[in-house]
């Protein structure tokens, strides 16, 4: 099989996930897009491992081992990420990442909040 097929599919999937991360507003949809990007990387790892195990007689199978590690880390990431999203939803009542602007800077509409007293209240709230 030509190596360009899995490599091109992996690049397209990665850019699809990139679009999803940048364009989505719901935090869980952003997590789905992150999963897409991780899967694109996994496909690349598997394809290059299968290629190198023949072409270079690489016997470590490092690509497949790293793929398994990536899958496990992605499972841990999705668990922690969902826990964070649920905590945010419980505290704020929304899972909308556009509304979580507490640490945002440099917006003209937020200028009344730059008083020292309210800043301290915001930091501790």
């Amino acid at each position: 099989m030509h190596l360009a097929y899995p490599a091109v599919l992996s690049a397209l999937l990665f850019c699809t996930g990139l679009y999803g991360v940048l364009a989505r507003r719901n935090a869980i949809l952003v997590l789905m897009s992150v999963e897409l990007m991780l899967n694109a990387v996994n496909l690349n790892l598997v394809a290059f491992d299968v290629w190198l195990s023949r072409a270079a007689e690489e016997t470590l199978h490092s690509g497949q081992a790293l793929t398994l590690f990536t899958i496990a880390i992605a499972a841990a990431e999705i668990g922690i990420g969902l826990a964070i999203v649920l905590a945010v939803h419980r505290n704020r009542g929304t899972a909308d990442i556009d509304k979580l602007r507490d640490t945002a800077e440099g917006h003209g509409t937020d200028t009344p909040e730059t008083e020292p007293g309210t800043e301290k209240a915001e930091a501790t709230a």
Partner: protein
Amino acid sequence: MTFAQAPHVTLAQAPHVTLAQAPHVTLAQAPHGFLSPTGVEIAFLLVGLVTFGAALVTVTTRQLVHAALWLVVTLGGLAVEYLLLTAEFIAWVQVLIYVGSVVVLLLFGLMLTRAPIGRSPDADSGNRWAALIVAVAAAAALVWVVVDAFRTTWIDLDGPAAGSTEATGASLFQNWVLPFEALSVLLLAALVGAIVLSRKAKEESSSPPVNARGVTKSSRPVTESSDPQVRANPAEQEGTR
């Protein structure tokens, strides 16, 4: 001992062999070509089209639950691609972990955050066009570079499977034991962290708001005298807490 050998093998052999054999391999496999694809390539292309289309629907649909279900199609298509690349163990791990557990977790997350059933018009944020430009530019650059770099490279899929369960298990437990064990510690840490994050801490939630309210009360005379909008702000935040 295997760890001491591993860098030696990869550093010493891999560049030498690939550099020496790459022209030889392409010359020996000259009958390959873009215009005469094999059966495996056609199958890979068709499944890849389905996978890419499902991924596009996943990131563009406005129905949140449908996005999770199209993600199942994408991940299942990737499992089929792993099977076509003779990595069967990875394929079944993909089906078990991604399709089995990650998507179920995502669906539970959607339900627990009270995602709307049906169309939600605010699924995409305002910077959709900037994101589209960035993604298309990245895709064009990546596809161009990748196709140009691996134009004369073929994967040899004949012979014994490179990713059979036996080969994967042997390499995993001969060469990758220490990262494997470290990964189990990471999974334990993630488990504990998820429990700590998602539990309703009553005794801890009582102490920081008292502290915060004290700070707001102490700073309230300053804000009351200055601006009525500012005074409404801490109260609003306490309401949303």
